[in-house]
């Protein structure tokens, strides 16, 4: 059992959790994730390790409640426990000295790119960050990203905050204005990562993305998370989740991720909506 020791609501649907998991806390590196299962008969889902504290033995996760499992998690409070947490999984992000780097987070993807941006900064890189979301209330970690960045740009699809538009708009400006940007790290919804990849390809800028394939075990034992990278089959959980964006077959992954949409809806409708929304809004136990 893995007790929740702290919980903070970052936006109406996005919550930060600190969970006791000492072995994982000790080994976490930027780019790693965990698989978690909240209850018996629950699903195993992958969530990025945003941070860890090896002294306190805790890990930090930031999760957007979008379906059955993530909503169930949102109903859990400090003192409750998560049944299973396993990790750290995946290949850690290669942290190199590129000089100037752009780190892009879309929606909850900002939580996933933040530890990478921090590690890149610690390695001596200059960070330009772009944080995007559909609307203002889905923008997270703006302050944290800002603190480690030379410049930060915020975009919202609806213009409710920052610049109206998508993350590729400021990215294009940056790439046009600054020839010394040698790498781009982008994590967010697949269409966003695809758009970033298409753009940076024309500039020939090295780009890494983290692929959110559907996972079951997260340890390389099922092949459910297979993705096509440069025409070769790779398992996102053990060969990734980060890959060279210019080699990723995004359309294939977008299609594969739709495999269970109808069933996910059934599962979601079954998880009595009311208590989770109450919990999301105020954290009532």
């Amino acid at each position, binding site marked *: 059992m893995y007790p929740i020791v702290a919980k903070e609501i970052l936006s109406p649907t996005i919550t930060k959790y600190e969970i006791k998991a000492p072995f994982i806390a000790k080994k976490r590196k930027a780019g790693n994730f965990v698989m978690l299962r909240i209850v018996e008969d629950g699903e195993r889902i992958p969530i990025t390790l945003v941070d860890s504290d090896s002294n306190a033995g805790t890990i930090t996760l930031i999760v957007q409640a979008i379906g059955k499992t993530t909503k169930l998690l949102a109903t859990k409070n400090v003192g409750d426990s998560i*049944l299973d947490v396993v990790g750290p999984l995946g290949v850690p992000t290669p942290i190199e000295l590129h000089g100037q780097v752009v780190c892009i987070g879309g929606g909850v993807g900002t939580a996933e790119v933040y530890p990478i941006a921090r590690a890149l900064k610690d390695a001596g890189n200059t960070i330009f960050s772009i944080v995007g979301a559909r609307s203002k209330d889905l923008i997270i970690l703006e302050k944290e990203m800002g603190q480690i960045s030379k410049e930060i740009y915020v975009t919202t699809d609806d213009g409710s905050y920052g610049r109206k538009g998508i993350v590729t708009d400021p990215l294009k400006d940056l790439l046009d204005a600054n020839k010394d940007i040698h790498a781009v790290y982008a994590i967010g919804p697949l269409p966003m990562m695809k758009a970033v990849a298409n753009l940076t390809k024309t500039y020939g800028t090295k780009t890494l993305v983290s692929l959110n394939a559907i996972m079951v075990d997260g*340890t390389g034992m099922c092949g*459910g998370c297979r993705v096509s990278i440069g025409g070769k089959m790779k398992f996102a959980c*053990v060969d990734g989740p980060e890959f060279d964006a210019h080699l990723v077959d995004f359309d294939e992954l977008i299609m594969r991720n739709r495999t269970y949409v109808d069933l996910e809806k059934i599962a979601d409708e079954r998880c009595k909506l009311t208590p989770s929304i109450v919990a999301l809004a105020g954290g009532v136990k």
Partner: protein
Amino acid sequence: MNYVNPMKPSERMKLPRQASIEQIAEERNKNFNEVSAGLDEARALIEAARCLECKNPVCIEGCPVTIDIRTFIQLIYKKDYIGAANKIREANYLPAICGRVCPQETQCEIVCTLGKKYEPVAIGKLERFVADYEITHNLFVPPVITNHIDKKVAVVGSGPAGITCAAELAKIGYKVTIFEALHGLGGVLRYGIPEFRLPREILDTEMERVRQLGVEIYKNFVVGRTASIDELFNEWGFEAIFLGTGAGTPTFMGIPGESLSGVYSANEYLTRINLMKAYQFPDSDTPIKVGKEVAVIGGGNTAMDAVRTSLRLGAKKAYLIYRRSRKEMPAREEEVHHAEQEGVEFMMLTNPTRIIADGNNWVSGIECQKMELGEPDESGRRKPIAIKGSEFIVPVQTVIEAVGQKPNPIIQTTTDGLNVSKWGTIVVNDVQLTSREGIFAGGDLTRGGATVILAMRDGKIAAEAIHKYLSEKPDADTKVK
């Protein structure tokens, strides 16, 4: 040598081999309850009476862990069922499992003297009978551990290899810790073999018995990620490590269309169903989608389990596509027979060439080629050769590939000094020692896909070797660095 059965051999030979009580095929292919209920007491006694009590019990040589088969059958004859169970357990800690899943027809039963002219004694069914008797009557008494050795051994993986190694070492008196990557124990027994062949209560009971030996168990612990092998030695203070991580990484055929929705590796398919209970969706949260028509590719136990599971999940037609002939199929005979009874359609000498998509990126069919058998290859099996122009399309909405597995490389790639073969298996000597001091390995990890009993045999041999190694190792050496 004493005979316990007063009947003359000629009388014994007249007794017919006893059959298990089974759910009828038309019903069982719709549920996940166990197919076979095994032998009842009356039948078990008749079956035990068939044994010739041979002076030279060749059956024992046929058994990979040399269970004293003759004696345990004699004990059944004397109605000392618990004595029989304990006799088996001297050689095999998991009789309820082996009695259900071992390929007896190629091991002990194929050599049984009675089988030369008549049908062999149903050794596997008798093994299962005593194990089940002990469970249903709650008569199991854990062995008393009298010796305590203050040395720690780590066992990685809770499949049959790891569980056996852990149990044997714990019985000797070592402090044993099992590390398991998944949230459930048992390896393939948990995530691969379906409930209709191995009910989960049986598996849980057997796993609990290992815990009762004082074995400490960490689930959700991926060695190589959560802690490395070197950390287990240097920081955790283990003095020997047994690796039983199996061969869990699926291989794909590499034909076009494998990324379509509706294509599964057998491992993913069976894991979703067995470990994650997707067949209870939406009462459980993990989804699975099974078409009206399903094609399973392969001829092993894994393929057989996947295809029989598909019928149980509502497929109207379930095809088993195999590129050689039925004779070459590596699956247990009983499983092939059960699959046939349940209505699986066998497409032998057939090889898939391409998976076909509908307009929504879902599988709509599989293109296959007819094969013929040519000359025998290195394995002695006749090599299948494609017949030109024989392509045809089978309409299916689900394709499951059960075409082989290889070891998961997480430990091999994070540990220095481990010799790995070109198939990805770990190289060991005759006592399961790897190329690194203190690290032993066995089961599918060293053999590629093999069997439960061979994994257990490796675990047992490794436990003896670890005991010898630690007994001889000078104590000064064993200090935690």
